[in-house]
């Protein structure tokens, strides 16, 4: 695992940086309907979008943001290391490779319906270049009250010491909203993605914040499908993870072999079942909320236990 990868440095920077809290971000697909709507919202939130890429529209601008024809030019002119991807799924593979070829270190891949093969290919490509990807099929990443790259609304999130990792978009908002109302602000909320293949997976996500001292607790929102929660539970035990963790899992009443909206939310036999995840979390000492609204209560309990 690449320990040096510092997502906070990429998205926020350190106080001595000239562009502290103003790290340059590029949006691939800035002129599409989704890309344009959310570029506006991101900018309003504080994200420093320095360029957009739409082939054929180079030289134009979008609300004062210069548009480039390709990533080579965009990166050269702006020095950005992070790209928010809003391209349609069939163009995802080539767009992601283009970004990685030109020095992008973090891809935030919003599109849904990316083929599995393309995701795996991009991940291999990124790994060879020391880069990472969030998603695909992710709401993105938000550093509350600083910046966001993605499609999440602003209102549920508030600055604080909890980190939220979620395989589901709306549940990330819902759980963060519950946390915020209970007084648990967030240091970082990151959508793992609803696909079978995830860039930054749960374990890699936990590695990102493992040694960050002002992260006090972690909430992990999972769902049926795959074995990410099971492997995470093993990781927490084996590495003696130093921060309190609370979980939620959606889909325990879903029928087997039915894809529940997300490409990744499907149970084959016991592979991906909620029972298997509950069992593993229980063994790892991770309390699992029955409802999203229960998350802050479990977290409060967990923190009290630690104080005692």
């Amino acid at each position, binding site marked *: 695992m690449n320990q040096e990868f510092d997502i906070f440095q990429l998205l926020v920077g350190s106080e001595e940086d000239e562009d502290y809290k103003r790290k340059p971000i590029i949006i691939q697909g800035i002129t599409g309907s989704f890309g344009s709507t959310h570029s506006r*919202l991101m900018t309003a939130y504080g994200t420093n979008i320095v360029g957009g890429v739409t082939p054929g529209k180079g030289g134009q601008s979008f609300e004062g943001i210069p548009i480039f024809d390709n990533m080579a030019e965009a990166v050269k002119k702006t020095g950005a290391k992070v790209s928010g991807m809003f391209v349609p*799924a069939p163009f995802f593979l080539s767009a992601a490779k283009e970004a990685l070829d030109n020095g992008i270190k973090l891809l935030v891949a919003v599109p849904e*319906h*990316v*083929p*599995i*093969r393309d995701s*795996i*290919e991009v*991940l291999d490509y990124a790994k060879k270049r020391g880069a990472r990807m969030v998603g695909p099929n992710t709401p993105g990443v938000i550093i509350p009250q600083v910046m966001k790259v993605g499609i*999440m*609304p*602003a*209102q*549920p999130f508030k600055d604080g010491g909890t980190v939220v990792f*979620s*395989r*589901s*978009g*709306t*549940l990330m*908002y*819902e759980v963060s*909203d519950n946390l915020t109302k209970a007084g648990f602000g967030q240091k970082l909320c990151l959508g793992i993605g*609803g*696909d*079978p*293949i*995830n860039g930054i*997976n749960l374990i890699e996500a936990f590695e990102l914040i493992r040694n960050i001292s002002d992260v006090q607790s972690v909430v992990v929102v999972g*769902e*049926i*499908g*795959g*074995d*990410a929660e099971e*492997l995470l539970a093993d990781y927490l035990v084996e590495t003696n993870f130093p921060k309190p963790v609370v979980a*939620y899992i*959606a*889909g*325990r*009443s*879903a*029928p087997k*072999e*039915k*894809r*529940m*909206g*997300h*490409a*990744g*939310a499907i149970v*084959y*036999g*016991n592979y991906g079942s909620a029972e298997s995840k509950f069992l593993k979390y229980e063994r790892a000492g991770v309390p699992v909320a*029955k*409802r*999203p*609204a229960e998350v802050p209560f479990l977290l409060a309990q967990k923190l009290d236990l630690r104080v005692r």
Partner: protein
Amino acid sequence: MRLIEYQGKELFVQYGIRVPAGFLLDSKDEAIEAAAKLGYPVVLKSQLTVGGRGKAGAILKCNGESELLPKFDELMKREVKGELPRGILIEEMVDIKNELYLSFFLNRSRRSYSLIVSAEGGIEIESVGSKTIFDIPIDGLSSRVSQDAARQVGLEGKTAASFLDFSLKLSKLVVEKEAELAEVNPAAVLNDDSLVALDAKVVIDDNAMFRHPELKKYEHVSELEKQAEKSGFSLVELDGNIAIIGNGAGLVMSTVDMVTDVGGKAGSFLDFGGRATTETIYEALRVISKIKRIKAILVNLFGGIVKTNLVAQAILDAYKDNLIDVPVYARISGAESDKARAMLRGSQAKLYDTVEDAIQAVAKKVS
């Protein structure tokens, strides 16, 4: 997309993987003719997307013509896990020396395929004690790994050679068709040590279908699903009477769980995705209105940027246009909720502050 057995076997044949001689039957007349061509005994296999056919009695052996028609009828009428067959596959009986298990399956965490092989075929792989598992890169299986696998499950000589050929062909299919799963359970070793696929379970990556127009013909979606898909919704029909609508797959799954917890029965899962406008909600209600068993609709919408009054308008429009006549219980977090509440007053729809309250109300109403 889950292919049913005969479709999977069609693909197998294209890749040179041997399957028993057989025909897909839609009618009794075809059955008699097909059986005569194959020669008795024959096997009749119900074509379903659900597993556990053997146990459910949906695979029947026929020794002669007198058994054929009654058994054909029996299978056509037999539901397995709520599903009726999409045709009957009739196949020759092959002489089996022993059975193996073989599958390629996408290991999501390892970001590769897993090749799983066992010398015990014909039973659920999860209950098999001894199996061999190899990581296979997404560009396919190598001869060396296939030979290793064969050795580890005790295949020798001619059988090992058959296994090499069989597994490489299956790997090619998996890679080229972008399958998430290709399972042969069982693969039969015949008396001449050749291998035949007795069953086929293939799942294709839905998101890769745009690259596979040749597989389009295998798509089997109901009118309802077609309509939902056209609107960009994800719909899963469930067997209860409470329709559940929301924005986001996780949120809707979570709502189904909570409804189930209080004894309610979800009748549908509908995720209308990121765009909660008056039109999308109205369209979602239209889709739901086609499901006859629905007695109430639960809307769970977590917005932030959603205007609650737009959702309320869509619900009112759906009542006005006689699209729905069942009560709607809605939890909508978003702006303008007072306005929405006032709009819905006097209608069959009611707004709740928390999803828990909405669920309590709907469960009480329907039970």
